[in-house]
């Protein structure tokens, strides 16, 4: 056929990658419209610098720790939304679904005296049931997800009011649930988890290289693997140093230090969903349905089941977001999961690099995008801007992210068929 340029390994001509070649390829991908989380990461750094310079309290360990519990609900809902968005669908009801699930937990804890290990699973099951109903209507009845979830958005708002007896506020006293969003790991445990995460990542990366090399397949250059591991180490160790500082205003009275408990919770779900999307048949099928539904159907993939499942995952993640929101606020009210929560969560997923057109996105997008949203919210609050300004800026940033997505897509279409 056409000319073979370099080494022939295993029959098919492949180019032995080098570190420089890897960066060259990456740059080519970026230019070709495959941006991933890059704009969000750059945006996060720029925003953090701006806020950090304008208000030195932004980088204080107290505020830094606060960012995590503030952003947890967005991040959880966004992680679920990534799955829905991967199929090119939308779930507008995720915010109030999280409110309903949080309310169920609070009611069971406070009004019915359930223990946390009964109330939390009940909230999660509620999320799963909600997701199944939404997914069923979208997949089996063929109603556009926009309409189904818009209806659910309104209905859940009503259910929440109904559950709360017309708008009462239910507070919770269960210490376990309160700890979820408000307490920290001990310093020793914080470091232990950080080290476990770094070592775990290194082991996964290196074993992949080893098993591929053993089969004579192309591997990432060792330099890149080392850089990845070192990069993760830096990204984890610096925050751990900051978070293990004493950040109590009055340390004698009440010592506050250590990584917030929400961080490992987010990390666990991030790892689980990343694994499921990247390394399992199910995840592959989600991408396939999102990329080309007809091709997926012809390949024998149960498209309807996949469609239902992503709504279940979304509402399930929303239920966890709701549990954490209730934990953080110590109570549930008719606005838990309401106001801007859903839109911030969709924004988080999209800003993080998940495409609204389906087929492109990762669990990490939700975390990075959620971080951007939270930093804007938090930083502008510190700078004393009004809620109005915050919304406008967040809106603009979402618009920028959506434009990046749309432009990248056009770029990809233009360069795709060379």
């Amino acid at each position, binding site marked *: *056929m*056409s000319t*073979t340029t370099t080494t*022939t390994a*295993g*029959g*098919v*001509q*492949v*180019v032995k990658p080098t570190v420089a070649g890897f960066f060259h390829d990456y740059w080519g991908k970026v230019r*070709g419209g*495959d941006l991933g989380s890059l704009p969000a990461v750059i945006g996060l750094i720029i925003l953090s610098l701006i806020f950090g310079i304008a208000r030195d309290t932004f980088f204080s360990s107290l505020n830094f720790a606060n960012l995590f519990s503030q952003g947890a609900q967005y991040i959880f809902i966004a992680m679920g939304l990534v799955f829905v968005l991967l199929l090119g669908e939308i779930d507008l009801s995720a915010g109030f679904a999280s409110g309903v699930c949080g309310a169920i937990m609070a009611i069971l804890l406070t009004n019915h005296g359930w223990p946390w290990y009964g109330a939390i699973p009940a909230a999660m099951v509620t999320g799963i049931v909600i997701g199944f109903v939404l997914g069923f209507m979208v997949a089996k009845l063929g109603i556009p997800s926009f309409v189904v979830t818009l209806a659910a958005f309104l209905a859940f708002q009503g259910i929440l009011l109904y559950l709360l007896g017309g708008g009462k506020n239910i507070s919770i006293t269960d210490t376990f649930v309160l700890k979820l969003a408000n307490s920290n790991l001990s310093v020793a445990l914080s470091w232990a988890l950080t080290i476990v995460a770094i070592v775990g990542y290194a082991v996964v990366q290196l074993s992949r290289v080893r*098993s*591929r090399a053993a*089969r*004579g*397949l*192309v591997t990432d250059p060792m330099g890149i693997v080392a850089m990845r591991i070192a990069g993760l180490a830096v990204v984890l160790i610096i925050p751990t140093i900051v978070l293990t500082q004493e950040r109590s205003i009055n340390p004698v009275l009440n010592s506050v230090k250590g990584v917030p408990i929400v961080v490992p919770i987010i990390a666990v779900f991030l790892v689980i969903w990343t694994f499921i999307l990247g*390394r*399992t*048949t199910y995840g*592959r*099928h989600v*991408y*396939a349905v*999102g*990329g*080309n539904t*007809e*091709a*997926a159907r*012809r*390949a*024998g*993939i149960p498209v309807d089941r996949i469609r239902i499942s992503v709504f279940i995952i979304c509402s399930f993640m929303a239920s966890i977001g709701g549990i954490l929101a209730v934990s953080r606020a110590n109570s549930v009210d008719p606005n838990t999961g309401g106001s801007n929560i859903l839109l911030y969560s969709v924004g988080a997923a999209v800003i993080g690099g998940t495409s609204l057109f389906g*087929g*492109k996105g990762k669990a990490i997008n939700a975390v990075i995008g959620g971080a951007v949203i939270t930093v804007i919210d938090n930083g502008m609050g510190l700078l004393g801007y009004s809620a109005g300004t915050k919304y406008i800026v967040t809106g603009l940033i979402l618009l920028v992210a959506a434009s990046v997505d749309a432009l990248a897509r056009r770029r*990809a279409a233009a*360069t*795709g*068929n*060379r």
Partner: protein
Amino acid sequence: MAATPLLELSGIDKSFGPVQVLHDVGLSVYPGEVTALVGDNGAGKSTLVKCVSGIYTIDKGTITFDGNPVAIHSPREAAALGIEVVYQDLALCDNLDIVQNMFLGREKTRGIVLDEPTMEQMAGDTLASLSVRTVKSLRQLVASLSGGQRQTVAIAKAVLWNSRVVILDEPTAALGVAQTAQVLELVRRLADNGLGVVLISHNMNDVFAVSDRIAALYLGRMAAQVKATEVTHSQIVELITAGRSGNIGLPPEKPSDFNGDVVDITPGGDQ
């Protein structure tokens, strides 16, 4: 050439409601040969292929595969027999890479984890067996491939599963000159590897370039199945447009069969 057909259809009827699309169609596909299936738009080529691939069930007739009569009710059953169809729209996911596309729906796993090294190796071996050397990396996204490369991936996907019969629906329709040549070369190589290949095409040059046999459908009937060396270009065109040419093809039409909009050409030979 092999004496017994790998896939043999005979007496296939297929109707959609009141419209009979296939009338008593027979087709033989031999291993190691490319059988071109030609016919005008609406002649029933796609319907015939969909009957073979299990998307439609036949009303009447028999399908014999490897000497045994078989009933094909779903694409999975066709795939289980070793019949793979490469559709015109290729059915590839742009957001997945070459290996992921080739194994779509039939991923290899170790436990619950995808066995990427094995899949990559098998995909590489398959592409190598087709002498494909034009891809930069097996992990390239399909979105970044050219039309010819996509066709190649789609064909490789079809032959990955030790398939015995590969049906290609207009594989060169959207391709440029050089890419068409590459794909035709690939089609020829499939047959040379011992597969039975059915090539659907409108392009007579392509048909004569690679096929061993030519089967012409005319208004839902098999006009003729002939050896490519025994007919000329214009004879095939006549078979496609009129159903017969000289002494090959359908018997002269009975005027009552048609509504008069088909031009009756001088009756030639009879059969």
